[in-house]
């Protein structure tokens, strides 16, 4: 889901940078008010975990690959605003050092994976796990559903961003200047492969991690303690 340089035209790239700037500003402001110095290592682990989980490419035999983001887990544990910062750090490092995702597409990639994914995941988790005890089974299911929903919505948006390009920028002969595939193909493939395969990876990662934390550190899941 890391959109490389060249797939999105300047209008789309600019648009998402403009959208992300106030989101990053608000995230910084909120995290500054709520994050204690003691929680900084958790935020660092969140960023590092997201970075490394995205390296686990899962193959569709003979086809493409995809991966989990780990962003919904970060959002459940750190709150969505802090997760936004942690995933942004991971995505920027991936783009700058490893060429994974374009530098012109940092705005768009962060919108999909560092904003939509953690926020949707966080609120789905909250809605399903509402008022349940920290060690309830419902929380594990909530985490799985949240991971699945978050990553699929992000994939859908990436598909829309890819697919709009032939409409926005094309030559007189009808060739796209950027991503060559239109909405129908891009949205179908991006959403389809995540609904069928990669969404489950995010769901399982998120659910298993919550299950593990229930056993080993329930207080990390308690409502008030880690609210950022």
């Amino acid at each position: 889901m890391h959109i490389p340089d060249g797939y999105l035209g300047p209008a789309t790239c600019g648009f998402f940078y403009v959208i992300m700037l106030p989101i990053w500003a608000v995230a910084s402001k909120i995290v500054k008010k709520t994050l204690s110095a003691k929680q900084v290592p958790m935020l660092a682990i969140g960023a590092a975990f997201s970075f490394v989980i995205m390296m686990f490419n899962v193959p569709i035999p003979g086809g493409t690959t995809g991966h989990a983001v780990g962003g919904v887990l970060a959002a459940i544990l750190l709150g969505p605003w802090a997760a936004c910062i942690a995933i942004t750090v991971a995505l920027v490092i991936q783009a700058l050092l490893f060429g994974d995702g374009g530098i012109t597409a940092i705005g768009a990639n962060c919108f999909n994976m560092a904003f939509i994914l953690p926020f949707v995941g966080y609120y789905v988790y909250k809605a399903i796990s509402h008022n349940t005890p920290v060690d309830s089974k419902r929380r594990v299911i909530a985490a799985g559903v949240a991971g699945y929903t978050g990553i699929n919505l992000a994939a859908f948006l990436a598909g829309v961003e890819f697919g709009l390009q032939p409409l926005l920028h094309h030559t007189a002969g009808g060739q796209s200047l950027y991503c060559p595939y239109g909405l129908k193909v891009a949205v179908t493939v991006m959403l389809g492969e995540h609904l069928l395969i990669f969404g489950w990876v995010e769901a399982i990662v998120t659910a298993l991690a919550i299950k593990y934390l229930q056993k080993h550190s329930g207080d990390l899941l308690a409502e008030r303690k880690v609210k950022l």
Partner: protein
Amino acid sequence: MKLITKLWLGLGVLIILSPLGLLLPEYFKAGAAWGEWGVDEIQTLAGYIPKGLEKLSSLWSAPIPDYAFKGWEEKPLVNLSLAYVSSAVLGVLVCIGVVFILGKFLSKK
């Protein structure tokens, strides 16, 4: 053991296992992620290279492109796995470093 220590260890385990993300797609003959093809691949897939894409795609030259050292493209998988683990170590360390620096500005006193 404190939870945070376990989490750091878990991160270490993920780093060591990271080459699976390289080897499994190789084993199952899976190509690039959808929408993340190189220019040559697009030529094959779409039948042409979009003009803007061609220009922009070389805009940034990352120091460790695709988690592999430059010039190692043709090396055996063992070497590529080594580069992959090294990239994971470096990436994780930089993530931690950046968050700790950000944390200086973004946390309550």
